[in-house]
C-alpha cells in the first residue's frame, strides 16, 4: 500500500445481492480493500439519505450504496424507487460541494463477485486520491462536540 492515511469507506449493501457478492468475493479469494466497512441493509431502498450524510458527518471519506440490478429486486421495486432518490441525492451532494467520488451508487448482483472487488478497489483508489474528507459536513464551530 502507498503512503498516506487509509480512507474509511462505508458500504451499504443489499442483503440479497451485493452483500452476497461481497461474501462470494471472499470465498473466491478475490482481494478488495479492507477500508470498505460493510453495513448490511435489507434493500437499497432502505438506505435513507440521512444514512449517507451521517456516515460522512461521522468520519467516512467515501460511501457506497449497492443494490440489485433494476428489475431484480427481492421486493420487486425497492431499488427502482431508490434509483430516483439516488439520482437526486448525488446531484444535491455534489451541488453542495462534495467531491465527485465520495458518494457512489452501483448495482452488483450476488454472482458478480469480481465486479464487487473491482468497484470497491476503484472507489478506494479515488478516495485515496481525494484524501481525507474535511468538508463542510465536518466543519465544527462553537463548543466542541462531546462523543
Amino acid at each position: 500500500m502507498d503512503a498516506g492515511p487509509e480512507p474509511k469507506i462505508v458500504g451499504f449493501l443489499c442483503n440479497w445481492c451485493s452483500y452476497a457478492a461481497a461474501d462470494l468475493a471472499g470465498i473466491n479469494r478475490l482481494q478488495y480493500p479492507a477500508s470498505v466497512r460493510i453495513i448490511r441493509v435489507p434493500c437499497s431502498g432502505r438506505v435513507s439519505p440521512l444514512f449517507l450524510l451521517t456516515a460522512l458527518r461521522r468520519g467516512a471519506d467515501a460511501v457506497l450504496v449497492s443494490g440489485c440490478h433494476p428489475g431484480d429486486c427481492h421486493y420487486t421495486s425497492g431499488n427502482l424507487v431508490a434509483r430516483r432518490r439516488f439520482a437526486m441525492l448525488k446531484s444535491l451532494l455534489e451541488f453542495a460541494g462534495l467531491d465527485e467520488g465520495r458518494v457512489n451508487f452501483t448495482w452488483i448482483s450476488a454472482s458478480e463477485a469480481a465486479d464487487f472487488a473491482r468497484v470497491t478497489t476503484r472507489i478506494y483508489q479515488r478516495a485515496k486520491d481525494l484524501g481525507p474528507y474535511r468538508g463542510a459536513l465536518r466543519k465544527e464551530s462553537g463548543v466542541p462536540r462531546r462523543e
Partner: protein
Amino acid sequence: MSKQEELRATARRLLAENRVDLILGYTAGTLPLRTTPFFARTPAEADLLVWNAFCEYNLTNYLPRYTGNRVGIVVKGCDARSLVGLLQQNQVQRERLYVIGIPCAGVVDRRRVALLAGGAEITAADITGGEIVVRGRGFEKVLPMEEVLFPSCRRCRYGNPVLADVVLGEKVPERKETYEDLAALENMPAVEREAYFAREMAKCIRCYACREVCPMCFCKQCFVDGTAPQWLSRWVGTADNLFFHLGRTMHLVGRCVDCGACARACPVGVDLMAFNRKMIKDAEALFGYRAGLDPEAHLLLGTFDPNDPEPFLFRG
C-alpha cells in the same frame, strides 16, 4: 370592484350562507408593508380581510390543523400549488375546502424595501400601478415593484392559481421561469461552492422557522427532533446545520413548489432556496416532473419508471 372588495364580498357570502366555518385570509398588519394571517368566522369579520402585495404568508400551512372544519382559504399561485401537494399526500380533504384563488403578480420583500429605502423607518407604503411609494420621517421614495418582489416571485411562472373554486380578479401575465439564479452557483468550482454553503450554514441558528412555515413539513415528528436515533446534536454548528438543510431538502424533493416561505421566515437570511431550486431543476430535467400541478399525480419519489435515467451510476 378591486380584488380586495371581491374577496370581502365572497367571504361574507360564504360565511352568511354557512358554506364554511371559517375563512383563512389576511388582515392588515400593525406595521406598514405587513399583513397578518386572519381567521374570519363571522360575516362581519369578513370585512377585515385584505388583499395586497404584502400578503406573503402561505396559509395552506394551517390546513392540516383544521381537519374538522369547513375551511375557506385564500390562495395565491404558489399557495395553490402547495395545496395541490397537500391533496396529493392526503393531508387535507378537498370536500371540506372552499378555495378562493387570487392571481398574484408577486409579493413585496419588505427587507429589500427597507434596504433600498436606506434603512430609515418606514411609516407608510402605497402601491400604485407598477410602483411602490414608501414614506418615513422626512423622506419619500418611489421604487419599481419588479425590483422589490421576492426572488421566488420574480421567477414565478404560476401566478394564476392552478386550483380554485373561485378566482377573483383578472389573470396576471405568465412570467418565464428560468434557472438563472442557479447558474452562478453551478458554474463555481466545487470548492468555492462548498465554501459558499459553509458560510450560509454558519449563519443558521437552527430555529427551524423554515420548517415551521413550510406547508410540506407536516410530519408529526421531524427527524431533527428525535432522540432514537438522534440524527443531530442539540448545539448549533456548520456541520449539523448543513446536515439539517440537506436532510430537509431531500425530504422536499418533488414536493417543494418554490413558494419561498422558508426564505421569508428565516431570521438570519440563509440562502435556503438554492438547494431546493437545484432539486426542482433536476426533477424537471431528469424526470420531467413539476411539483404541485396535479392532485392525482404520484409524488416524484413515491413512484418509478423502469426506464428512469441512471446518471449517478458508478460502474468502476
